């Protein structure tokens, strides 16, 4: 994301996606290409999928990035990878909070309460806990090299236990999320895409846009952290 054209392109892309997501009308029987089908019980509230889901997706991408940079730090002992790992995790936390807040606001209107302990709500809560623990650990270690090592190790251990949530959650809890339909398949965190084709298109466009936005922000964060370090060492 070095050139200006790419940045302008991304901004345009996201603007278009957001406009489409908010403005396209919802009608009972869609005829034109821009009309979304109305979903009984969700109506206009269905639009959250274009924002909330990409945010949740981005936190996962961020976590994987933090983990991979953690592994690379352990292999090379180059503190720059640690810096990237923290930057990834920091942005991941932000997106995680955003996804939790938007999801819980939506849940208030659709399910009647802010929090329902549905499997996916629980998994994002756990991810939030992992991020919290990661930063709590970092703040408890003084020496930078040690901090980098310990937090990388923690991120990796948290990473390998995450798949177990996927197996465990649906056995314990019942799903409320759209897509669950009360069937055991839908209660899992992995969901089939059953959507009108035009909605699906906007949805994937948004997913792509958010992912690129994340990498742009990540790039900025890494560069600003490097500058901060340089300034500190000059003082």
């Amino acid at each position, binding site marked *: 994301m070095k050139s200006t054209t790419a940045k302008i392109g991304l901004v345009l892309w996201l603007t278009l996606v957001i406009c489409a997501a908010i403005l396209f009308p919802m009608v009972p029987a869609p005829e034109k290409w821009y009309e979304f089908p109305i979903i009984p019980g969700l109506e206009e509230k269905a639009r959250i999928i274009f924002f909330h889901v990409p945010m949740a997706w981005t936190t996962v991408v961020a976590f994987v990035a933090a983990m991979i940079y953690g592994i690379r730090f*352990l292999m090379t002992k180059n503190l720059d990878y640690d810096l990237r790992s923290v930057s990834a995790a920091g942005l991941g936390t932000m997106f995680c909070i955003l996804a939790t807040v938007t999801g819980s606001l939506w849940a208030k209107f659709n399910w009647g309460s802010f929090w329902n302990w549905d499997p996916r709500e629980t998994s994002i809560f*756990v991810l939030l*806990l*992992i991020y*919290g*623990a990661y930063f*709590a*650990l970092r703040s*408890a*270690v*003084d*020496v930078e*090299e*040690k901090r980098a*090592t*310990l937090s*990388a*190790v*923690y991120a*990796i*251990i*948290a990473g*390998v*236990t995450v798949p*177990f*949530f996927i*197996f*465990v*959650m649906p*056995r*314990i809890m019942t799903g409320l999320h759209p897509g669950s339909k009360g069937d055991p398949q839908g209660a899992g965190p992995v969901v089939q895409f059953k959507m009108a084709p035009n909605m699906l298109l906007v949805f994937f466009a948004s997913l792509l846009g958010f992912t690129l936005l994340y990498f742009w922000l990540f790039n900025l964060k890494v560069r600003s952290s490097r500058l901060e370090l340089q300034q500190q060492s000059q003082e």
Partner: protein
Amino acid sequence: MKVFSAPAIHVFLKDSHSEIRTRYALNALLMFVVTALALVLFSVGNDVVGTDVLSGILWVIIFFSGMSGLSRTFVSEEERGTTATLQLIARPTSVLLGKLFFNFVLILSLNVLVAVLYIVMINRFVILTPSIFWATIFLGSCALASSSTIIAAIIAKANTKGTLYPVLSFPIMLPLLLTVMNATRLATEGAAFSEALGEFQILVSYTVVVVTISILLFGFVWKD
């Protein structure tokens, strides 16, 4: 294999011997169990509480009792300044396996104690399928020991050891806690042993995965 395992066994023996002399972890663990059980008994009283809730509470007691004792293995080395001594006489893997085994024995005996006291003291907690229940206690102890050991190793190197331990271990242990609670519920419902096989499968694979990743990463944590 002989060279590989013998040092681990002696690390375990050293820790057990030391524990018997100092009772660093044991006293804290026992006091916690007694206090927590008494509190549960007071608050439950004669009220009717569902077995679901009771099997949940059992593992809450076990989780927090474990918290107060399991981190001791590495923290005590760090506090006494013997970490470097141990580094100079054994491979990291031997130390990890020795400590892992020590934690396993500690948590298993704690769990059996808690489970027996719990069944005796709370009348409504009836185990209809003992085979599921005891298998859960055993495999749950394996899983708890595996994750608590590597977390303890991380904690020992940080500044605020006590408060950090539950914070770091909770998200890691949550899948296993949910699984053991579910398995315990099956045991109280009188399910057939085969119905709980899925739960056991999760516990076994969780233990293997966490122990493997611990062996791979412990070296980084152990040597500064």
